[in-house]
């Protein structure tokens, strides 16, 4: 069986068409600054309106649609206040020489980060308990196509009993009100991630000898064990992390910790909101500067934990630490961007390690730390 061919980039494509591109913003900014800024702000409100489009498919009942519409309208009003403030902040930061493209990138980055922050925060234990029940509901990942990010999220609202729905809606409203504020304390990114945990369990199961602790639904098992790219399907991604969450709870992780891992795994990153040309992306060196990072002017460094074999040669690398600088994101950790350099850093590690190794750093341990700097030229 094959999965429904719905990729995460569906929304990205919507953004690419309907969203305010950097080029469009540049044009807008040829006019008087205030008018151009207003235009830029409205363009981003328009984009968010698309992201938050209330699904009109018949599987979403009318009361839920009405409640979501009220919530979204309030949020868009909130954004109409926030965006001029954010634009003003960027102008203040960049001064009179702020290039128009930079302004638009900064606003884009801030919004993308807010979208991520929105999904990793918890509004409280009651909400979390309801959400966990919704996530674990069998068959929930047979996702209907609903055309927007809110449409995807509506799955959880639709899945809960009517009595629980107000808890979810109240929680969402509270989280949306956090947009534009400093989140403190923001829960740290789990390490290992849910994806890491899932990958190691899948490797164990693939051996054919391990007994599953929590079973996958057949469509996920089929995808995973046939080696298909799970992340290319929203259904499979949903099911994979549903399974990961169920396993975490099964082994006794706290609901809070397990749900946080799930939240980070399900969160949309900057890559999910960008769509580099597939042909160009496919041709690129895996260790090269990531296209999405270049597109949004992201820089920083990644510390790798490199393990050496007994001969001192490179054996493996994993992420030890990161410092990512994101234009437009100063008030909160850039959670939507933090992992942008991970794959490229690890892909380039064997080649870069040779030079470190040849310096004979004298470290007795088999593990060393190696910093990869990512600087925009």
């Amino acid at each position, binding site marked *: *069986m*094959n999965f429904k061919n719905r990729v995460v980039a569906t929304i990205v494509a919507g953004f690419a068409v309907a969203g305010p591109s950097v080029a469009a913003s540049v044009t807008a900014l040829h006019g008087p600054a205030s008018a151009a800024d207003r235009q830029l702000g409205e363009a981003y409100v328009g984009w968010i309106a698309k992201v938050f489009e209330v699904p009109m498919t018949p599987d979403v009942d009318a009361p839920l649609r009405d409640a979501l519409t009220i919530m979204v309208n309030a949020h868009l009003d909130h954004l109409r206040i926030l965006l001029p403030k954010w634009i003003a902040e960027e102008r203040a930061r960049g001064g009179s020489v702020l290039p128009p493209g930079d302004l638009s990138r900064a606003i884009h980055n801030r919004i993308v980060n807010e979208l991520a922050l929105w999904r990793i925060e918890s509004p409280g234990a009651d909400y979390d308990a309801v959400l966990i029940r919704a996530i674990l509901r069998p*068959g929930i990942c*047979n996702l209907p196509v609903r055309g927007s990010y809110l449409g995807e999220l509506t799955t959880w609202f639709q899945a809960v009993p009517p009595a629980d729905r107000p808890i979810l809606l109240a929680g969402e409203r509270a989280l949306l009100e956090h947009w534009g504020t400093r989140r403190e304390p923001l829960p740290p990114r789990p390490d290992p991630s849910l994806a890491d945990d899932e990958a190691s369990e899948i490797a164990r199961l693939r051996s054919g000898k391990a*007994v*599953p602790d929590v079973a996958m639904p*057949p*469509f996920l*098992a089929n995808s995973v*064990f046939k080696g298909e790219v799970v992340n290319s399907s929203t259904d499979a991604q949903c099911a994979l992390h549903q399974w990961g969450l169920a396993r975490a709870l099964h082994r006794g992780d706290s609901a809070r910790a397990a749900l946080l891992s799930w939240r980070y795994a399900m969160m949309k990153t900057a890559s999910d909101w960008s769509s580099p040309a597939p042909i160009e992306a496919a041709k690129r060196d895996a260790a090269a500067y990531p296209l999405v990072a270049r597109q949004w002017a992201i820089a920083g460094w990644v510390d790798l934990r490199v393990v050496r074999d007994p001969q001192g040669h490179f054996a493996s690398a994993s992420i030890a630490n990161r410092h990512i600088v994101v234009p437009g994101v100063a008030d909160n950790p850039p959670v939507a961007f933090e992992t942008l350099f991970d794959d490229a850093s690890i892909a380039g590690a064997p080649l870069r390690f040779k030079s470190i190794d040849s310096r004979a750093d004298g470290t007795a341990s088999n593990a060393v730390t190696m910093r990869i700097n990512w600087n925009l030229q």
Partner: protein
Amino acid sequence: MRGFSFNRLSRTCTALLLAALTGTAMGAITTGSAPAASGPMPEGITSRIADESADALWYGDFDRLEKIYNSVRQSSEFVDGGATRLQWFRVGLARVYEEDDATDPYFAQLEAMTHAWAVERPNSPLAQLLYARALYARARSFRGGDYASRVLPPAWQEFKKYIALEKVQLERNADLLKNESTADIYLMMVIRNDDGSFETLRALALDALARNSVDDGGFVELATASLPKWGGNATRFDTVAREAARRARPASGMAMYSYIYDQATDDFEGEMFEVSEVDWPTMRQGFRDWMARWPNLYMLNRFARDACHAQDKPTTREVLDLIGNRPLARAWDNQFESCRRWALEP
């Protein structure tokens, strides 16, 4: 699109699993002994019930499966080309249990999922049946489709282990499953693979009919067990085909006789009309009986194909005319063109 892998097991489950396509109203081939179904001719390959049950199992949604099962398990109508709703339900399950190219970790997950359902729902007949069927699927995954003598000993050992586990599962829940014809059919599959006697299998086929008077899947399974490759012979097979027509769908003439022989054409390796005891005039009548009651394009195509194999040129021409521009590739095994040319020859 999902990859279906219909083998004998899925044929066991329902009459028209391999049929296909859409159609238009069909009236020419009728005996007049029963009203021809009106409206568009169904494909005969699938049904909404099969699609829904496959979907529910595929996504691991037991509650949805049970809801569907409860609505179909005692339904007596033949729908979508000639199978009961329960039979279509099993067809849907078989799509997941017989996933193409799946490896053991897939079947291990299927077993684990259905085992959890069976443990969590000890009083649910469906939960127990789904687990039993998963054990069978895993057994078959080790065995493969080759002759037993060619299966490697370690794989054979695993096959036997899971067959035995399925038997235990069905026997342990015998009381709970006493009203489920599907339990008889699943047990027949075990017994056939476990060198059980023909008499035991026949008793189970009759028991399935006693539990559900329209569930003739047991007779299709019995026919399979009567094939020479399963220790039977041509006479026994013919006896089963005739008994199926008499007992399983008594009001539909020789329809089941034709169906059972048609499904066995591959097992007779293309020489059915030479090595079996099939009586073509009876089989031809059976096709007409079937089409009179449950017209569908797949069966119509099979009728033409079998008529061609039987070298009955007038019937081949007649049915090809009815098929017109709707030949179904999967019904013909690449023989449509040669049969068509032969039929057109003077």
